[in-house]
């Protein structure tokens, strides 16, 4: 087993990393838990290249001349005593590869929202006109920005429909939250709206709520009259208004 790992370690690692990338990008949409949508083609290409690269290490190949000859100028060896041995650090690549192949970590949720604390809303000055009648389906960011920054108070006395996941809040209320990612989950930002009304479903449950803006509070707040549990969206990090 050890000899096998030694001889075919690079092949094994490269293939495993490639297979992990393909599993999350080509054979499923798990990659949406970690990175932005636009990265999918790059992940697929990288996965294919890595699998081929790993397989190519198994083929018998002509050895370049340098392997037969000591390299006089080099005091450096990679991590081990002998030259031309791959680095031991490379085994760290097995951590994300195995995690993705065996137990893909879940999408970020209410832990990150709670950690984010205040959840300041970026200042916005320009608000397009809302449709004059009917229920407004808004993204959480748009609702929050209008609630905090809109001088015309365009949300006043309107019925609003929002979607997001449940995050615990203060006494007698909870928060409807979304996490927005621009590139990968490391740059996650949270948006949260305080909800008054129905009892909170369990943490991280995705819901669609209908209600009206509470202009009295400083934080964006919704007085909810109706709540519906929905399945988690395909892309958890894209702040879209609820469908329908």
């Amino acid at each position: 087993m050890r000899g096998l790992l030694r001889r075919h370690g690079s092949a094994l690692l490269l293939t495993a990393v490639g297979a992990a990338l393909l599993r999350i990008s080509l054979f499923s949409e798990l990659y949406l838990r970690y990175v932005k949508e636009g990265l999918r083609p790059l992940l697929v290409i990288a996965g294919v290249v890595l699998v081929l690269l790993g397989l190519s290490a198994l083929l018998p190949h002509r050895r370049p001349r340098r392997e037969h000859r000591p390299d006089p100028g080099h005091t450096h060896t990679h991590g081990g005593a002998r030259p031309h041995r791959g680095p031991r650090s490379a085994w760290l690549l097995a951590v994300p590869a195995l995690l993705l192949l065996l137990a893909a970590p879940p999408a970020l949720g209410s832990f990150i929202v709670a950690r984010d604390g205040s959840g300041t809303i970026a200042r916005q000055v320009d608000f397009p006109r809302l449709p004059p009648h009917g229920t407004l389906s808004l993204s959480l960011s748009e609702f929050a920005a209008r609630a905090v920054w809109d001088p015309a108070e365009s949300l006043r006395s309107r019925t609003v429909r929002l979607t997001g996941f449940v995050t615990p809040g203060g006494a007698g209320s909870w928060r409807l939250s979304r996490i927005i990612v621009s590139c990968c989950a490391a740059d996650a930002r949270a948006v949260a709206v305080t909800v008054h009304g129905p009892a909170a479903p369990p943490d991280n449950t995705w819901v669609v709520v209908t209600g009206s803006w509470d202009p009295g509070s400083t934080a964006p707040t919704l007085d909810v009259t109706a709540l519906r549990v929905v399945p988690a969206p395909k892309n958890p990090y894209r702040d879209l208004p609820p469908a329908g």
Partner: protein
Amino acid sequence: MIEESSGAARLEQLPPRPAAGLPLPGAEVRVGAGAGRVLRLLIRVCGLTVLGGFAALIIGVGTLLLGPFLVEWLDQPGFEAWRTVLVAVAIQGMPFLLLGTVVSAAISAFVPARLLTRVLPANPVLAVPVAGAAGALLPGCECASVPVAAGLMRRGVAPAAALAFLLSAPAINPVVLVATSIAFPGRPEMVLARLLASLGASLAMGWLWLRLGRPEWLRLPPSPADDAEPGHRWDTFLSTLRHDFLHAGGFMVAGAAAAATFNIAVPPSLLQLFSAHPWLSVPLLGALAVVLSICSEADAFVAASLSGFSMTARLAFVVVGPTVDLKLIALQAGTFGWAFAARFSAATFVIGVLCSAVVGGWLL
């Protein structure tokens, strides 16, 4: 322990040893030596059995006692989020790291050294700005630039010029500048400030290396292509690519783990405490960029959300981030050695903060 060479080739390098069963001069000596050997073997076997038994016992009992806690700990939301961020940083960087190592291996295997030295000015003082401006050509995140810079150095490009390229490529490429303009709508001066401060910092670092850098700090990976023959170029390309990707990839995962730890452990609300100090906030946001290790295509969006801070401090965030962060320090340490990574990152941080302060004070 990954081995590219076969076991047989390695055995040949070992010094010859006397074969075990050869008759030795003197019967007593032979019996004594044989008994001693058997005794030593017995002791070793017993020792190993006892040690192994103890280890198995400790592991067994430990698993039984701690198992439930371990499972609970694995299920903690904080640890769960840590794993998600670690995996996210690693797979986000993976395609770009692969692109970087492919370009680097191709430079090593296929580009004649003469070509590069002909394109760049022979005088390193002039080669630095040319290489720095060429950084705009490599789209993608910082993971790609480290292996490419190493490939350029292996091919005889002056280290100062390759380092200027390493720093400027992730910061001033068109994708990053467009992302910055989207993140700061109605503030085109932010894009200009980012371009000028990042380019200025890259060139300053290149020239600083010319003045102060010592070759012994820079441990270049061996160049497999030094003696590549035409017929072996593909083999050279593939083996360089495999080796470089695995090597850099391992370090990138280490950097991603460190970044994920800070990402989960440092609450952003803590930062708001410092936003009132105009001068303290500039190096502070620079330091935040180092520990968060956000890729250069996305850092402008995070900077835009740091609304309590001055524009100059946010400029420091996007100037320092693509040039010094935990992921990059790990990658540089893996590629060029710790002696280089520590000095270079510290100097780049200081220069990056200074450039941001100057350009920010002037433009923003």
